[in-house]
């Protein structure tokens, strides 16, 4: 199950960065988001998986699709001439990935013995990482962060309205 989702995830991610067509990239990214939601389900983070579906695929990616839809008719907008890729960038990319692959092989030979610090106070509260556990921690330990989030979102609302509020359309 894990491998199925992992391959799907990597495959769609590669499509995202390698395609020339913006719409394909956006749709592949949507696929990535959905697969990741399923990975969250697999990790028993059920509420987060559903939130991933609602917020990312339901809202963020819709915005992306809308923007592409509005602008794609100008054919040359998305055909930005790409400068010849610098050699160093290519070499470093190849080196990075080869390093990664060899690292993975090393790990697979002798697995990492990670010692994880368990927060015993809170892990007692929750049996199976369900929503109730999440909200207990969210509204006790992280309450301040939660309220700051409210202020932050308010600021974003005001900012976005003042940036984007204008008469007329998207082109003139």
């Amino acid at each position, binding site marked *: 199950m894990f*491998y199925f989702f992992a391959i799907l995830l990597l495959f769609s991610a590669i499509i995202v*960065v390698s395609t020339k067509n913006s719409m394909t990239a956006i749709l592949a990214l949507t696929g990535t988001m959905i697969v*990741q939601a399923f990975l969250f389900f697999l990790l028993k983070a059920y509420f987060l998986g559903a939130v991933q579906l609602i917020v990312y695929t339901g809202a963020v990616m819709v915005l992306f699709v809308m923007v592409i839809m509005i602008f794609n008719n100008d054919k040359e907008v998305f055909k930005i001439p790409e400068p010849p890729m610098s050699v160093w960038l290519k070499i470093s990319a190849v080196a990075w990935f080869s390093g*990664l692959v060899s690292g993975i092989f090393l790990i697979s030979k002798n*697995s990492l013995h990670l010692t994880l610090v368990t927060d015993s106070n*809170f892990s007692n509260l929750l049996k199976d990482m369900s929503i109730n556990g999440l909200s207990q921690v969210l509204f006790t330990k992280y309450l301040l962060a939660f309220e700051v*989030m409210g202020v932050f979102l308010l600021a974003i609302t005001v900012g976005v309205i003042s940036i984007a509020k204008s008469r007329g359309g998207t082109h003139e």
Partner: protein
Amino acid sequence: MSNFLIAVGLEHYLILSILLFSIGMLGFFFHKSIIMLLVCLELMLNAVNLSFVAFSHFANNISGQVMVFFAMSIAAAEVGVGLAIAVLFFKKKKSFDISEVEKIKG
């Protein structure tokens, strides 16, 4: 080796996460359109979220999930503002090219 393939543990999720992150990073370096840059940013954020949730699952600690919850909302807000700026930029410059940003003067 075979044992490593069968028993899916934390390492597998971390490997997946770092691969996803590197793909996103690669895209971030190679693309020039503002929208594609935002897309690759999303990819990297997703990779980080995945590792957070994996840690949270295997360490039996819910704090990781709360962090992801916050990270998701901030990422979503960031995309909203980023695309608003991109559209505004397009209105002025008729292009999504990131190198045009250098020419902007206040």
